[in-house]
């Protein structure tokens, strides 16, 4: 058999790929029959609830569970972050940290048991003012987080006897002194939480010494290792299942300590155990995105092209104290000379975890707001400033892509008609409108993935892959690739995912999944098809090279009329199914997938200057993603990402009480998220010129979740003529900014 040449079919031959296809598991989801981890109920199971620490920073001195044990229905109480009878106090560094877990016969008994646990705390000073660099410094809560300087080569080098830092300062000063326009500003974006609607958690049971876990996870294939390591067993003794997951966004890669506790409690009690976090625990301890605040000065030439950037940014990722990674600043735009420094702030919060496009939304929001302020200062159209500055970006080869995308987005939002100089728009009563832009980038490299494909003699096709569906439509894209390759319909192929017993596939994080699974499924399908075609070729007495799988048949391309149905072809396989196991290793150059996309978003907002309310009128996203597999779910990803951007731009923020550090808005009534009425008109444009499409599949989850926030912030500034410095742009912040500007 000749070596298989992995590639996508030519465009005009594609029957499934690139089409709008309903997701295969849609009816299970919308009909309420899809079983998520939280929905798995095992016979005789115990329900576990954790007791979260109510203080941001304290020592837990002692825990008294005697009353809790007396609660009818309480079966077992498990220590998590709490001292045993003769132990030293346990220091708690984040509000919500689970201290003990109560296992009971039902939810209500578990909750009552939790309420009866008595804990002695010694309160310690809490610090959560991550926006306040001065106060962090005064409290010894800062940590250097890197930085550096790069100067235009044309500026030369320091002389042998010159102090390097002094020389650099002098050069920077000179660059600013000779700039036509200088902008100085402070910008920020607060911490938000993942707030998965299905909280983190697991349902577990032990069967003959093996641990069976239903886990709400983005990482089916590796979660077994996480359990095995913590429980000192081997990964082959752990099976993890996740058929459906109710949101992850980067926070569900690990079993977490409560997942491990579920396994331990199950072992001790000999009963299945379900341990899910409560809503406020989910918000407090299950994942948050670091904040970022910046002080920046930039200098531009007469045309508005930025030639020098100088910034210090800070923020927090919680008690380990890092901030937005310094390498992302300035974001996308790279003036020829720039200096950037970062300071991490140690707060009494749970450490952050990856959040859809880690670092990028914040880096974008604290960079491109300053670029927009340059436009405001010059009285020049922001679109022109963004276009002119494409001459200095960190991926110069993408400049024409951004330029084209900006042109398309501008048309779709009617930019030239609606734009006005900052603060100079017509007022309708107290309401004024504005336009804003953000641009972004993302890698989206395909993860490693293996696919076991079985073709049965009766024509049945089934694949097995240890991947998962976060809501991107993973099952559907796998089925589309198989159906495309074999010339079948979607219901003629069966895709099996969501189990650690299936061949390894990488975690779903960083926009890596669709690339990964289409790589492994296309490879497996092409490998298997080559074998079937060999059998058919012999039977029909033609060369396998002229055979195509199309329309449920294997057809000879030589006009001989020779063909057989898919079923007839598969009957040649024999009694045992044909099995192939095909792999893609991350980083392998391949015609099937690629990396690095560009995108832009624009927002049109209306701001009420009396109430401070910002309303989205229209948002436009223009996004490339290489080859699109399922147009329908691809668009949904972008709509969803835009809505998440609206959430972060206008609504959500983690609010810590300034004195106690307690996270005060950890219930959904207070942790504000947009509702259906808040989204305005969203327009998605899939940017797919042949040059992009020919690159193969590139991940789409993160990129459209990056620059929307920035576009909204810039639009509000364009409306008001005043920068509301920190995102989210709450009504209070809008009014405060207007007041400050008035003086």
């Amino acid at each position, binding site marked *: 058999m000749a070596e298989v040449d992995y590639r996508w079919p030519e465009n005009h031959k594609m029957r499934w790929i690139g089409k709008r296809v309903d997701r295969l598991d849609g009816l299970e*989801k*919308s009909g*309420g029959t899809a079983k998520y981890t939280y929905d798995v109920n095992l016979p005789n199971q115990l329900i576990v609830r954790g007791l979260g620490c109510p203080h941001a920073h304290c020592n837990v001195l002692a825990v008294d569970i005697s009353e809790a044990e007396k609660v009818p229905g309480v079966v077992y109480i498990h220590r998590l972050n709490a001292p045993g009878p003769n132990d030293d106090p346990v220091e708690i560094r984040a509000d919500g940290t689970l201290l003990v877990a109560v296992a009971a016969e039902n939810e209500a008994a578990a909750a009552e048991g939790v309420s009866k646990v008595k804990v002695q705390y010694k*309160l310690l000073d809490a610090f959560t003012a991550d926006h306040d660099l001065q106060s962090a410094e005064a409290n010894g809560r800062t940590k250097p987080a890197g930085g550096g300087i790069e100067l235009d080569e044309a500026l030369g080098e320091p002389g042998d006897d010159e102090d390097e830092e002094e020389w650099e300062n002098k050069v920077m000063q000179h660059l600013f002194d000779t700039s036509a326009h200088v902008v100085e500003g402070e910008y920020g974006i607060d911490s938000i939480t993942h707030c998965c609607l299905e909280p983190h958690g697991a349902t577990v049971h032990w069967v003959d010494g093996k641990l069976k876990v239903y886990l709400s996870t983005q990482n089916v294939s590796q979660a077994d290792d996480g359990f095995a390591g913590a429980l000192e067993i081997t990964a082959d003794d752990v099976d993890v299942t996740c058929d*459906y997951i109710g949101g992850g966004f980067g926070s569900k890669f690990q079993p977490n300590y409560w997942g491990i506790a579920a396994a331990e409690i199950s072992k001790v009690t000999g009963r299945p155990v379900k341990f899910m976090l409560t809503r406020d625990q989910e918000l407090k301890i299950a994942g948050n995105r670091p904040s970022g605040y910046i002080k920046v000065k930039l200098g531009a030439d007469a045309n508005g092209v930025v030639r020098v950037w100088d910034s210090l940014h800070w923020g927090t990722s919680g008690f380990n104290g890092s901030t937005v990674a310094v390498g992302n600043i300035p974001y996308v735009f790279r003036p020829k000379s720039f200096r950037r420094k970062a300071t991490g702030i140690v707060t009494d919060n749970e450490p952050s975890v990856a959040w859809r496009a880690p670092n990028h939304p914040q880096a974008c929001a604290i960079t491109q707001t300053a670029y927009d302020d340059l436009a405001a200062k010059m009285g020049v159209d922001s679109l022109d400033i963004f276009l002119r500055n494409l001459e200095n970006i960190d991926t110069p080869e993408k400049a024409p892509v951004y330029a084209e995308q900006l042109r398309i987005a501008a048309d779709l939002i009617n930019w030239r008609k609606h734009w006005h100089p900052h603060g100079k728009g017509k007022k309708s009563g107290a309401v004024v409108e504005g336009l804003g832009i953000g641009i972004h980038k993302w890698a989206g490299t395909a993860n490693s993935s293996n696919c076991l494909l079985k073709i049965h003699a009766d024509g049945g096709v089934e694949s097995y892959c240890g991947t998962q569906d976060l809501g991107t439509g993973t099952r559907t894209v796998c089925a589309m690739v198989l159906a495309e390759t074999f010339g079948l319909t979607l219901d003629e192929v069966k895709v099996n995912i969501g189990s650690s017993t299936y061949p390894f596939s990488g975690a779903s994080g960083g926009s890596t999944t669709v690339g990964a699974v289409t790589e492994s499924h296309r490879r497996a399908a092409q490998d298997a098809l080559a074998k079937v075609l060999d059998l058919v070729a012999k039977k029909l007495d033609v060369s396998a090279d002229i055979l195509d799988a199309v329309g449920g048949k294997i057809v000879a391309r030589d006009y001989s009329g020779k063909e057989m149905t898919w079923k007839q072809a598969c009957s040649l396989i024999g009694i045992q199914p044909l099995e192939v196991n095909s792999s893609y290793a991350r980083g392998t150059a391949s015609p099937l997938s690629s990396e690095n996309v560009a995108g832009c978003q624009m927002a049109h907002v209306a701001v009420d200057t009396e109430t401070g309310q910002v309303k989205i009128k229209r948002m436009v996203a223009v996004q490339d993603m290489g080859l699109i597999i399922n147009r329908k779910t691809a668009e949904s990803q972008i*709509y969803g990402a835009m809505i998440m951007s609206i959430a972060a731009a206008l609504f959500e923020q983690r609010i810590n009480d300034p004195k106690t550090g307690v996270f005060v808005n950890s219930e959904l*009534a207070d942790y504000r998220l947009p509702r*259906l009425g808040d989204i305005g008109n969203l327009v998605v444009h899939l940017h797919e010129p042949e040059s992009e499409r020919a690159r193969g599949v590139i991940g789409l989850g993160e990129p459209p979740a990056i620059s929307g926030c920035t576009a909204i912030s810039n639009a509000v500034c364009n409306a008001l003529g005043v920068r509301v410095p920190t995102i989210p742009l709450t009504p209070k912040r809008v009014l405060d900014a207007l007041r400050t500007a008035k003086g």
Partner: protein
Amino acid sequence: MSQPTKGFSRRAFLRGSGVAAAASSVTSTQSASAAIVPVPIIAGETQVSLTVNGQKKTVTVEPRTTLLDTLRYQLNLTGAKPVSSDGSSGASTVLVDGKPVMASTTLTVAVSGKSISTCEGLKDGDIPKAFVSNDAQQCGFCTPGFVVAVKAFLNQHPDATEEQIRAGLNGNICRCGTYANVLQAVIALVKGNQNG
């Protein structure tokens, strides 16, 4: 050193609620107290009959057992989801005698004898199909609640305009951001088709 937050047992609350109401009324206004009839204290397990998706069911519950827990743990109907304990996400929306309520904040004893419709009961109807063809679900965790909310909304507003839809479906949170698709699904339903 501080004491832990005193937990508040809902069972204790129910046990004592009748007494507490009477006592506070007595101290507030004399005349009002005459109208207060001490309610019997409900405790222990009790049997409740209800109709769920057209089928008669009898369940044994405690007074504090929520309708959500009854559906999910006793009736194997896990479409309604536990997302927020205060009902602010809408994920546990079910219909009680045709009206939308949050199963997470409804006690099972309070719906005794009533007719409950959950998402599962609507699964063969037009709404889930419109959700699928308009791709109004991503992770899908909010979706069953949304489907029921749409049912209740369309019962009231069968000819809803886009503006009314935008104004009338704000009780449900979707973290994945399917609102644009839900909007399209409902527009399609009003038009009488489910095309995506």
